[in-house]
C-alpha cells in the first residue's frame, strides 16, 4: 500500500470528521517521519500492547504518544501495567521458547532494558528515521546500536517537606543524618538512585565506581541508623501525604505529581549531585513482521517533537528531541536539566556498569538495610 493510499484509507474511514481532523491526521503522519516506510506498509494489527507504569506515567504516555499514534494509524494502543521487573521474565521466557512475546513494546528503565539487550532479546532500532533528530541522550551508553531508544532523562532528587526544614532547603545528602529526621526519611527499596550520591557524600570518588564503593556503603550505613522507610514510587507519595516521612530520594516526577496533588513538597539537587538516568522503549524479539513494523512506528512516533512535548510535559522530564519547551513550573529547575551547566550537577553512570554490578550492590544495600 502506498503512502497516498494509506492516507486515503484513513480519511475514508473518517468521512464524518471535519476536514480539520483530516488535516490533523495528515500532519500527524508526516511527523511519524516514515513516509518512505509506508511505501511497503504491512498489514496493521488490531492493537499494539505497550507495557507502561501506571498513574500519571501512563496518562502522560497516552496523551502524548498513544492517542496520536492511534489517530494517525487507526491502530489501537493497549497499555499493560504489569510491573517492569515482572514482565521481564515473561518476555525472556517467550523469546527463549520462540513464542510471540506478551507485549509489543516495553517502556522500561534503561538499566533494566540493558539486561534484556545483553541477553539478546531486543530488536535493533537503529533504522528509526527520527533518531537522526535525537540528541546523544537517546543512545544507550555502552551498548552497540540501538537495542533500546532512550526517550527522556530523569533525576533522583532529594524531595522534602518544607515545614520540616524551617532553616531552609537541605543542601546536602548529609542533611538526612539530622537526628530529628530519624524514622522520617525514605529511599527506594533497592537503593536505586542513592548509591552514587552516597559515594560522594561518603567522601569517595565517582571514578572509583564500581571498584571501590566503600564510601557509599559507609554513608548508607549511617543512613540506616536513621531508620529509613524503603519503598517504591507510589509509596513515597503516600508517605508524604500521610505524614510518615519528611524527606526522600525519589524521581522528580513523583515529587512533582505529589505537589500537583496538593502535598506540601519541594525538591533539590544536593551539592554532592544527584543520579541522572534515562528510561527508554524497546521491542522484544519474536513479533510477527507486520507487528514489529508497527511497533517500530510507535517508537518512531514517540521521538517526534509533538509527541515528546505532550508526553514529557506530563512527566516533567527533559526529552531527547531538541526544542521541547519545559513546563512553566520547571524552568530553571535542576531536576529538569537543559544546559551543560545543569548536567554538571548530575551523576550519570553507564547502564552497562550498573547492570553488571546491580546484583552485588543490591545484596550489599539489603545487607545493610535488613541488618
Amino acid at each position: 500500500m502506498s503512502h497516498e493510499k494509506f492516507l486515503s484509507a484513513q480519511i475514508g474511514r473518517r468521512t464524518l470528521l471535519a476536514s480539520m481532523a483530516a488535516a490533523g491526521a495528515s500532519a500527524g503522519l508526516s511527523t511519524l517521519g516514515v513516509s518512505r516506510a509506508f511505501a511497503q506498509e504491512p498489514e496493521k494489527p488490531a492493537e499494539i500492547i505497550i507495557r507502561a507504569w501506571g498513574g500519571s506515567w501512563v496518562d502522560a504516555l497516552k496523551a502524548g504518544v498513544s492517542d496520536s499514534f492511534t489517530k494517525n494509524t487507526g491502530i489501537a494502543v493497549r497499555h499493560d501495567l504489569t510491573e517492569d521487573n515482572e514482565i521481564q521474565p515473561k518476555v525472556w521466557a517467550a523469546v527463549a521458547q520462540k513464542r510471540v512475546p506478551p507485549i509489543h513494546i516495553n517502556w522500561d528503565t534503561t538499566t533494566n532494558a540493558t539486561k534484556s539487550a545483553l541477553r539478546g532479546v531486543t530488536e535493533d532500532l537503529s533504522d528509526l528515521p527520527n533518531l537522526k533528530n535525537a540528541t546523544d541522550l537517546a543512545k544507550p551508553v555502552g551498548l552497540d546500536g540501538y537495542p533500546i531508544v532512550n526517550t527522556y532523562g530523569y533525576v533522583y532528587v532529594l524531595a522534602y517537606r518544607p515545614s520540616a526544614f524551617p532553616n531552609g532547603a537541605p543542601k546536602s545528602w548529609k542533611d538526612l543524618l539530622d537526628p530529628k529526621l530519624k524514622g522520617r526519611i525514605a529511599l527506594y527499596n533497592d537503593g536505586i538512585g542513592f548509591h552514587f550520591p552516597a559515594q560522594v557524600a561518603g567522601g569517595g570518588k565517582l571514578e572509583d565506581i564500581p571498584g571501590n564503593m566503600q564510601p557509599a556503603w559507609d554513608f548508607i550505613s549511617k543512613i540506616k541508623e536513621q531508620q529509613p522507610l524503603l519503598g517504591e514510587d507510589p509509596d513515597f507519595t503516600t508517605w508524604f501525604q500521610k505524614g510518615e516521612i519528611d524527606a526522600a530520594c525519589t524521581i522528580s516526577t513523583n515529587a512533582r505529581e505529589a505537589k500537583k496533588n496538593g502535598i506540601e513538597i519541594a525538591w533539590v539537587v544536593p551539592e554532592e549531585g544527584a543520579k541522572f538516568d534515562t528510561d527508554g522503549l524497546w521491542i522484544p524479539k519474536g513479533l510477527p513482521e507486520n507487528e514489529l513494523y508497527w511497533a517500530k512506528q510507535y517508537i518512531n512516533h514517540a521521538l517526534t517533537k509533538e509527541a515528546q512535548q505532550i508526553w514529557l510535559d506530563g512527566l516533567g522530564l527533559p526529552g531527547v528531541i531538541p526544542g521541547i519547551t519545559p513546563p512553566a513550573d520547571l524552568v530553571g529547575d535542576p531536576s529538569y536539566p537543559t544546559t551543560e551547566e545543569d548536567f554538571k550537577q548530575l551523576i550519570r553512570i553507564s547502564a552497562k556498569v550498573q547492570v553488571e554490578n546491580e546484583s552485588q550492590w543490591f545484596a550489599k544495600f539489603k545487607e545493610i538495610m535488613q541488618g
Partner: protein
Amino acid sequence: MRAPRAAYPLTWRVMDVLERLAAIVWPSSFQRGLPYLMLMPALVLVGLLVLGLVQIGDTSLRTLDTNTFLMSESYTLANYQRVLTESFFATVAGRSLVGSVIVTVITLLLAFPYAYLMVRTPSSALRKFLLVALFLPFFIGQVVRAYGWLIILGNQGMVNEALGLVGVPPIRLLYNYPAVLFGLVQYMLPFAVLMLAPALTAIPGELESAAASLGAGWTRTFRHIVLPLSRPGLVGAGLVVLTLSLTDFAIPAILGGGTQDFIANAIYDQFFRTSDQGMGATLSLMLVAVGSMLVGVVFMLFGAGTLAMTGDRK
C-alpha cells in the same frame, strides 16, 4: 404378551443404558485398577510438584552471567555457598523463622478461646456472630487487609488520632517487626480457628460435665480433658499457621516498610529485581527444605494432628 410399561419404568431403562456404557468404558476386569485410578489426581499433582522442584533444583545449580544475563551452562554450588555465608540471608531466614514461631504461638493462644466459645456457647446468636466474624475476613484479601492496617495504624491513622485526643504525640506503629507480626496474627487467626473448631467439637461435652461432677474445677478440666483432647486440632492449626507465616510475602512487604523482609521477599527480589533466577531458585529450595523439616519435627514430636485424618477402619 408384552409387559406393561409401568413394570419396567423409563428411568430403569436409562440406567441400564448407562450401565452398559460404563461396562464398555470400564469393564469389570478393570475393577482392580480402580484404586489406582482414584490415585491419579494425587499422582498428577505430586508429579507436577516434583517436576517443578527438579526444575528449580537444576536452576539453583547455575549462576547468572551478568555479561549476557543468561544462566551458566555448568553446575556449581556457588549459590548455596552464598546463601550459607552472606549475613543478609541469615538475617532474613532468622527473622522469618522466629517470626513464624511467634505468630504461631500467639495465634493459637487467641484462636483457642475463640474456637472453644464458638463450639460450646449455648447461644445460637453468639455462635452465628462468631462464625460471621470468622468468615468475613476471608472475603477481604490479604493485601487489602494489610492496607487497612496502614489506615488504622498510620501516623495520621485512627489509633494515633485517638491518642492525640488525650495529648499523646503520634507514635510510629507501622513499618517495624511487631507491625509485621501483628498483621500476620490477624491474617492467620481465622485459619487457626477453622482448624481448631472440628477438634473441639469432637470432644464430648459430657466429659467436661463428668469432670466437673467429680469435683474438677474449670482449670483442671481444661488442663486434663480439653487440652489433651484438642491436641490434634492444635497441631493441625499450628502447622498451617507456621508454614503460611514462614512463606508469607505481602504482610512483610506492606507493613514492614521495606526493612523487615521475610524469605519470600528475598526470593521475589532475586527473581524480579536482580534477575538472578539461580539465587532465587536456591532460596526457594532452602525455604521448602526448612519448612519441610519444621513440619517433620512437629510430626515427630506431636503427631500429625487433624492433618493425619487417621481413624480405625471397621
